[in-house]
């Protein structure tokens, strides 16, 4: 019998929260123990898809999450190579989800971690995320679907896990191939093997528990099902308590939060884009990594779309700039005009995708 709330989801939420705290203690940036968007962006930088010097690093966390999911799904006989559910549309959605996340400065997982760190700007992001989810639900109820996926050759399912394994191998054996930040967020990282090991466990747990940041709110609103939302709450509670116990918590504030800006309209709208796009995709960026690890080729394409979106975000200066204090001079940070235009363009693209893929007929 399936219980209303699976304790495994709460346990995974606690584990993710503890992992985030541990990774920060080991060297990751503050309030960024985990951030799927930021870490994919760092990988895009390390492979020179963009050249923003402050955000270039091959994050072993991404590799670990994907391979953790692969190992767990193989062990549980849940690895299935599937693809064919509107892959090009998913690529575009992935790119705009990434752009929204980088305008806000974090994926939904980092949003929760930032909330637990006392960053009030992230609560504004949460409001936007929720609004985006409601918009997505509106279209789901109108019959939105990216249609069916189908069984494909098993090798298709190993494309992203294989690429991740090769990436890890290359960075360990031929690091000179990659660009590495010497300052800024990309230069702050936990030791590679520790990060990989912790992420491997998180990936395995997230595969087993189906943890998803967008799924929690979506299911609560659509079905009064609070199973996945319990994981979201567990991450927040664990990170908040952990920050307090470790003496890192300085109260709730919008001012000068780590790698964050207080441009609230764009914190809100960036996360509207993320919430809406993630509902259309069927899961948050973390969930896309997990699905790709399970052999889902459509999720792999989505992840590639996110990497390209990250490259665009930095090549065209769409990403938000964090507030900073240098030599006593406060810079508020925020979002450049190009970033604002990109978010608005994202809404237009998501609206077109939502309308063109909605039908009141049953899915064929």
């Amino acid at each position, binding site marked *: *019998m*399936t219980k*209303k709330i*699976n304790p495994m989801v709460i346990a995974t939420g606690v584990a993710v929260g503890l992992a985030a705290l541990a990774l920060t203690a080991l060297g990751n940036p503050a309030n960024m123990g985990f951030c799927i968007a930021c870490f994919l962006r760092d990988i895009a930088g390390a492979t020179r898809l963009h050249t923003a010097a402050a955000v270039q690093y091959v994050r072993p966390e991404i590799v670990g999450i994907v391979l953790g999911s692969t190992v767990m799904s193989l062990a549980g006989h*849940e690895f*299935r190579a*599937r693809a*064919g*559910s509107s892959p090009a549309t998913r690529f575009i959605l992935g790119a705009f989800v990434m752009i929204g996340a980088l305008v806000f400065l974090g994926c939904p997982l980092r949003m929760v971690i930032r909330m637990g760190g006392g960053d009030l700007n992230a609560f504004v992001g949460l409001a936007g995320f929720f609004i985006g989810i409601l918009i997505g639900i509106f279209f*789901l*109820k109108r019959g939105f*679907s*990216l*249609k*069916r*996926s*189908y*069984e494909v050759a098993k090798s298709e399912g190993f494309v992203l896990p294989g690429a991740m394994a090769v990436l890890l191998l290359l960075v360990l054996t031929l690091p000179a191939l990659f660009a590495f930040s010497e300052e800024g967020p990309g230069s702050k990282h936990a030791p590679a093997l520790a990060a990989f090991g912790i992420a491997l466990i998180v990936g395995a747990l997230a595969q087993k528990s*189906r943890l*998803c940041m967008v*799924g929690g709110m*979506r*299911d609560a609103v*659509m*079905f*009064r*099902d609070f*199973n996945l939302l319990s994981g979201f709450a567990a991450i927040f509670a664990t990170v908040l308590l952990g920050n307090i116990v470790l003496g890192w918590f300085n109260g709730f504030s919008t001012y000068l939060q780590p790698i964050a800006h207080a441009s609230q309209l764009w914190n809100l709208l960036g996360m509207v884009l993320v919430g809406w796009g993630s509902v259309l*995709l*069927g*899961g948050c960026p973390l969930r896309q990594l997990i699905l790709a690890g399970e052999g889902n080729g*459509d999720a792999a394409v989505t992840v590639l779309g996110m990497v390209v979106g990250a490259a665009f975000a930095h090549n065209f200066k769409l990403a938000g700039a964090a507030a900073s204090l240098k030599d006593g001079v406060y810079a508020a940070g925020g979002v450049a005009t190009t970033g604002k235009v990109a978010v608005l363009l994202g809404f237009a693209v998501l609206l077109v995708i939502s309308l063109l893929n909605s039908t009141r007929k*049953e*899915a064929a």
Partner: protein
Amino acid sequence: MIDARGLSCPMPVVMVQKEVQKNAPQELTVRVDSMVCVENITRYAHLQGYEVQYTQDGGDFVLTLHK
């Protein structure tokens, strides 16, 4: 019989929800192709007061919901 094979989250549950809200059937059969869908539909069905059983059929799962 609802055929929700190959559809990603949460479409299979949405299809079951639509049928339950429209026709309130005493019994409903749903075919899916992942354990995630089995879990999600089962949780929703329990919340709606249905008993759920499922069997494996090759790579598919066939759920039977009944009141």
